């Protein structure tokens, strides 16, 4: 339980007008904690504390994060979700895309400037690591925000799902195995508010609180509301929006909403605030699962803390209708990528996730390092591998991503390095068998000024259309932010303006040092081949598909079985037709008389 207080602290210099440098030294290590009061477990913490400390800076600041991996048994990497990393693609953080894993005992320095305001978060981008604890808010303050002065306090609120077991164990034993052929995601054990439960959010009457909300979970989207309190949405994913009245938001993992909440006149009551799982996203709901987490807007510390009122349905604000403060009309696309999302089983019996029949498999050399070591070949997508699903984008073009979701589940997709216009998002399909697909000739609803953000969900068997400008040279990952689906390979790679990356960016030595320390390749194509970039022999590929019908093994088995049956039946026939003399002999024995003409001792 934590009490909230006024947040006005800047991490560094007091002169607000100058861009400062904010430095953090993070030692990533194991920490014991028990956030739901039910289960003590080890988390990945920072500097001996869990939850990890938030990063705070002002817009235009330079942030330097020196990460040392003291886990001892796992590599790590950090991604600063939503930060564009313009000109510093190497600092983005996803393993296999912009860097190698940082092995235990090594360190890496992330050094970048932040030129965007709002609420973000940072988290591990190695494997499915962050739900084991390595995630925290990243707050960028902006004195010039459009609603400056309209609030009294600037604070934040996190929601999360939470697993008792460790992610590597769950992935290996319960999730990515052949005994989970339907790909059912492990069910979380609890929901958390600020990595805790039953929090008391201290508020004073007649004040307006700016609450930056982030969902740091692994799987479940959540509905959040404050009983009897409406609020205004003012920012999503770092994009200011026209203040929009709402009483409930639906926030997927990795999304952020910043709201202005005005408190009531009196202090006679405390009001519950609730975050509730979207249970549609869970395959089964265990009987003992409490899928809500409660806190209270605490006006009176000594008053009652009532139980939340049950509601019949979730009446949330559809973020598609938010209007950005800086209005843009829909872009016209120069280049369009269409992908279909589907889940299938491959030859090892495991259920994987696909964009267009390709399930993402990380290459031997991080894609950015392939860009840096490939000279003029960097514009040919082949060198980046057969299973990284790479598209090479031009510079300063409008890129469109059309995503048709053939899976009956909701998926929140995130694009690194950019925000995008959400041009269209369909409703859910009426049944599992049909998928609503984007038809440019028959467009759906397009808002005059499309909403923009960096993480958006697609509805079951529906579609969405995104557009963005390729004005940020770098290698950017586009993937589902459900960690389980990322483990299943629901990702693709965008290599944006590789020539510009080569001429304007460099990889710091400590990044390469981390590769060397872990024995990872850092030059060449996806297979690590530095000589012939188009020779991909040895690259990592997805498992073979399930055999469709009879293989050689099956045919042999069938033939042998038929032969056995025929030989058997032949023997039966022989037995049936065999000599009648045998019968006479047997009969003689039964009667007890010796046969006339035979000697029994033959």
């Amino acid at each position: 339980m934590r009490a909230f207080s006024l947040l006005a602290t800047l991490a560094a210099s007091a002169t607000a007008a100058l861009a400062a440098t904010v430095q953090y030294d993070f030692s990533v290590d194991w920490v014991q904690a028990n956030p739901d009061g039910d289960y003590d477990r080890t988390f990945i913490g920072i500097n001996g504390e869990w939850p990890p400390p938030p990063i705070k800076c002002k817009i235009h600041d330079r942030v330097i994060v020196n990460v040392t991996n003291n886990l001892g048994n796992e590599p790590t990497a950090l991604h600063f979700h939503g930060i564009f990393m313009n000109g510093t693609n190497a600092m983005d953080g996803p393993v296999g895309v912009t860097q190698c894993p940082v092995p235990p005992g090594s360190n890496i320095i992330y050094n970048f400037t932040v030129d965007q305001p709002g609420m973000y978060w940072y988290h591990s981008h190695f494997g499915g690591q962050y739900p084991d604890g390595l995630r925290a808010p990243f707050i960028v303050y902006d004195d010039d925000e459009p609603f400056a002065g309209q609030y009294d306090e600037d604070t934040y609120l996190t929601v999360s799902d939470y697993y008792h077991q460790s992610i590597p164990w769950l992935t290996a034993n319960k999730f990515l195995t052949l005994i989970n052929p339907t790909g059912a995601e492990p069910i979380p054990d609890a929901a958390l508010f600020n990595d805790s439960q039953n929090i008391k959010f201290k508020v004073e009457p007649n004040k307006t609180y700016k609450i930056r909300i982030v969902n740091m979970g692994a799987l479940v989207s959540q509905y959040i509301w404050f009983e009897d309190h409406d609020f205004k949405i003012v920012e999503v994913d770092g994009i200011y929006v026209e203040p929009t009245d709402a009483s409930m938001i639906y926030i997927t993992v990795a999304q952020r909403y910043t709201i202005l909440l005005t408190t009531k006149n009196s202090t006679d009551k405390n009001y519950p605030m609730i975050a509730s799982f979207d249970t549609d996203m869970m395959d089964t709901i265990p009987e003992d699962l409490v899928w809500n987490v409660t806190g209270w807007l605490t006006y009176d510390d000594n008053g009652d803390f009532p139980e939340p009122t049950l509601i019949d349905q979730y009446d949330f604000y559809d973020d598609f209708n938010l209007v950005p403060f800086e209005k843009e009309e829909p872009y016209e696309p120069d280049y369009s990528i269409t992908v279909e999302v589907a889940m299938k089983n491959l030859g090892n019996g495991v259920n994987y996730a696909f964009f267009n029949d390709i399930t993402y498999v990380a290459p031997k050399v991080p894609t950015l390092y392939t860009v840096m070591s490939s000279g003029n070949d960097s514009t040919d997508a082949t060198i980046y591998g057969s299973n990284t699903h790479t598209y090479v984008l031009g510079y300063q073009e409008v890129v469109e991503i059309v995503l048709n979701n053939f899976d009956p589940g909701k998926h929140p997709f995130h694009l690194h390095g950019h925000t995008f216009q959400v041009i269209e998002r369909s409703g859910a399909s009426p049944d599992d068998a049909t998928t609503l697909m984007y038809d440019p000739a028959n467009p759906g609803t397009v808002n005059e000024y499309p909403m923009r953000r960096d993480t958006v969900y697609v509805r079951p068997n529906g579609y969405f259309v995104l557009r963005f400008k390729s004005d940020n040279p770098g290698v950017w990952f586009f993937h589902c932010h459900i960690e389980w689906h990322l483990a299943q390979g629901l990702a693709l790679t965008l290599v944006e303006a590789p020539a510009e990356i080569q001429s304007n960016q460099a990889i710091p030595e400590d990044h390469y040092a981390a590769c060397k320390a872990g024995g990872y390749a850092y030059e060449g194509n996806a297979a690590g081949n530095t000589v012939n970039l188009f020779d991909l022999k040895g690259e990592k590929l997805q498992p073979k598909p399930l055999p469709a019908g009879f293989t050689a093994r099956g045919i042999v088995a069938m033939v042998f079985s038929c032969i056995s049956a025929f030989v058997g039946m032949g023997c039966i026939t022989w037995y049936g037709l065999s000599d009648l003399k045998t019968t006479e002999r047997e009969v003689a024995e039964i009667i007890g008389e010796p046969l006339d003409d035979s000697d029994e001792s033959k």
Partner: protein
Amino acid sequence: MVQIFNVSIFFIVFRESLEASVVISVLLAFIKQGVGRSADDPKVYKALVKHVWVGAAIGLLICLIIGGAFIGTWYTLGTDAWGASEDIWEGALSIVAAIIISIMGLAMLRLNKMKEKWRVKITKALEDSKIRGKGWFRRFMRKYAMGILPFITILREGIEAIVFVGGVALSSPAKAFPLAVVCGLAAGGGVGYFMYKGGDYMKIQYFLIVATCFLYLVAAGLFSKAIWFLQNFVWSGLVGGDVAETGDGPGSYDVRQSVWHVNCCNGQSSGGWMIFNAIFGWQNSATYGSVISYNLYWIALIASIMLMLFQEKHGHYPFLKSWTEKRKAAKREREEKKRLDASDPELESRDTDSETKEISISVV
């Protein structure tokens, strides 16, 4: 189709009714040949024939009643929903069925032997059947000997059949029984009739060979299915409840154990393929276990047949020649001793009314 006609039941009933009808046809043949003074008096002949049929009919009736009651009770007490252990039940029952059928099957091919054996037994029984003694029971037995023999035979064969059918078929729906039973009875009766009419031995033998081949195909299939069910049980346990929703597709089977898998033609659920499953043990998703057990079954059968052929030709099993001869010698000694005792002058009063002789209608 397999839901109204269970192949295993048909074959068991066929086999048992075959043996019963052999007995009846032998009896009728004896009567024709003049046993029991029927050659002299057509009225006696007719009466004796009537005795045989009446005895048989009563026996059959009682069997049907017992059988019906047994099956009926079993099904009304509820056999459905073994639930999670259904696969284990199916597996165990299939193995039992396969074993029963295997043991019984080959005897059908020694029909002549069966007939001879019965002829000998009945001859012995009728010869020694000068049933002595007073008492209404013995008088009754004497008078209706010709009826009691088929009655007891049919009762015995019928109860055997009920027990075997119970072992084989309790996992199938109740409506699979009647048609199979009726067909089995008809087929068994038909063959017996042929034999009585002195029908061509070879024709009957061909028919029996085909029937036996079929029988063993079914048994091999059952054995393979049993192993398949057991492996399916293990797989369901690993995956948990989701197995049902995967249908025929990926996830409904263990890829590590798979020898072949086609996403159609499911022998448990899909029309014509269920017949393939019933007769040949076809699975759309075969495992190492199901394929290997199928082949092992045939190999075991072939080996057994070879052994039996060897024994019939040489009088003993391979390598057991001297052991067999010793046994035969000992048996002969015992017989000799019995004969000497019997012809002992002390016991010459065989014709007198003594109660020492037991009723010698043995239906062993």
